[in-house]
């Protein structure tokens, strides 16, 4: 059963969530078996920024009830080294590549999009707009008007499909999706992690030492699945462009729920940590 997405013909409906699978590291760990049994029908890169980023200090992880809080902080080599070092390796995966990029200004994002537009190995560009606006502190994607303006700037810069990865920490996620659509986005993806915190279990009594090195983090996994289903359903009701649904998907049933409310593709994130071939299992079960 092949699936059409933004003009692509994909073998099945399951991809990875950005930042939850490092295909290059995985190749070192699992060898060529990774290529032979690559679980995703398209591969989404970690978020890439213009300049290299170290990411947040440890600890970066906290296990919650049926969920994971991460405060990774988007470590990456920066655009140049991604394009020169990683892209040639990722091209060997044999599936379409979606490059996920983030910038805190329209200028930064423009440069990222323009650069990606040059590379034939990159099939589509995913914009991570869950990045805090330096001025307001809010995610740059949380305000529909701002998002529409941003997209209008970026749209002319490439003919590749532009996927907007919406922030779930917004009052009106469907309005953000509509704004993206009206400004020419080819697809939207959601949900990213929900803002979440944890305290150091070994802190002194009545102290509030934050556990995560980044101060706070994002919740993913099973715990957020009902929120993801609601947001995906609300968005598919309001836009015509295809939707990539994600958030807590662990089984084909969960994937089917997202598809049944209108998602075209489904992404698996945290579940790959528990089961690195989860996406393959889910794709297989979906076909049954």
């Amino acid at each position: 059963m092949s699936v059409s997405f933004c003009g692509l013909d994909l073998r099945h409906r399951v991809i990875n969530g950005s930042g939850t699978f490092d295909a290059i590291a995985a190749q070192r760990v699992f060898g060529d078996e990774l290529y032979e049994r690559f679980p995703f029908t398209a591969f989404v890169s970690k978020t890439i920024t213009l300049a290299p980023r170290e990411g947040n200090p440890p600890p970066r992880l906290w296990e919650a009830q049926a969920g994971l809080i991460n405060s990774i902080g988007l470590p990456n080599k920066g655009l140049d080294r991604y394009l020169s070092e990683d892209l040639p390796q990722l091209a060997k995966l044999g599936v379409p590549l979606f490059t996920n990029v983030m910038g805190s200004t329209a200028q930064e994002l423009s440069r990222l999009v323009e650069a990606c537009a040059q590379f034939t190995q990159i099939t589509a560009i995913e914009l991570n707009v869950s990045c805090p606006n330096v001025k307001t502190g809010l995610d740059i994607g949380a305000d529909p008007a701002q998002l529409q303006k941003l997209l209008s700037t970026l749209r002319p810069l490439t003919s590749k499909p532009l996927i907007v990865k919406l922030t779930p920490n917004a009052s009106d996620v469907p309005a953000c999706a509509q704004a993206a659509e009206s400004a020419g986005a080819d697809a939207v993806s959601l949900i990213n992690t929900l803002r979440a915190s944890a305290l150091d279990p070994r802190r002194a009594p009545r102290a509030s030492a934050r556990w995560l090195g980044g101060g706070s983090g994002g919740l993913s996994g099973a715990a957020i699945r009902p929120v993801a289903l609601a947001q995906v359903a609300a968005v598919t009701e309001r836009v015509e462009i295809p939707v990539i649904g994600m958030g807590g998907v662990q089984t084909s049933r969960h994937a089917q729920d997202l598809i049944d409310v209108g998602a075209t593709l489904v992404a698996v994130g945290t579940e790959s940590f528990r089961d690195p071939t989860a996406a393959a299992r889910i794709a297989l079960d979906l076909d049954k």
Partner: protein
Amino acid sequence: MVAPFGRRTVQITRSDTVGAYRVLHAADPEGPAPVAGQFAMLQSVERWGGGEDERPYLPRAFSYARFAGGEAQFLLEDVGPGTNRLDELTVGDEMWLLGPLGVGFSAPADGRRALLVGGGVGIAPLVIWQDTLLEQGTQALALLGFRDRARAQAAELLRDARVASDDGSVGHHGLVLDLLQRELDQDAHAVVYACGPAAMLEAVRAECERRKLPAQLALESGMACGFGACFGCVVPSRDGYLRVCVDGPVIDAARLERVDQHAGASP
């Protein structure tokens, strides 16, 4: 050693109490033999979760303590919901295992002898490492520190180990670092291999730095995936953050300015 892609089901064949710890044996006939220092991500097939707080949710990392005849051995201490669940597994129960993962120890060069410094449950990778070294004909003296007598019983897993204990109930009353210093004072032509609590690792690192001795530290860190996917397990190094799961767990001490407080075994 490259790992098969995907978690596989392994069956518990034995579960022994060793003092305060447990040694879990699992039949893993298809599993490639690990290099000493490598680890596996483990979770029970049934009832992983459902304890207080519904945790564990993610798999947990454990060093191979031994591997022979298609059977893996893990040494574990019950410190939380994950280890608690593994602790209660009995013969015939099933685990999911992903591994062997990470970078293991490498043998001493130029005829140096090996000093294996372990603390608490951190002795696990030193068991298989000592086996390997002795088989290769390399001297491998184990210096182990424990909180108390119950924990110190695990010293029996290694050959001719010298023991220190915090409470003085067995061996030297004090730190394993004292034993290390004593050894190095007598013969410093050695490579140090260490695994244990962060404070112990840092003391070992500093000592070896002072003496300009090579040291390999097996670090720990909270992990979500174990195969480089989440970037969650990092520790600071001289060249930025390293992922313990793919750049380690065994890391050349020279790469670290200091051992991060989160990078060791539970003390």
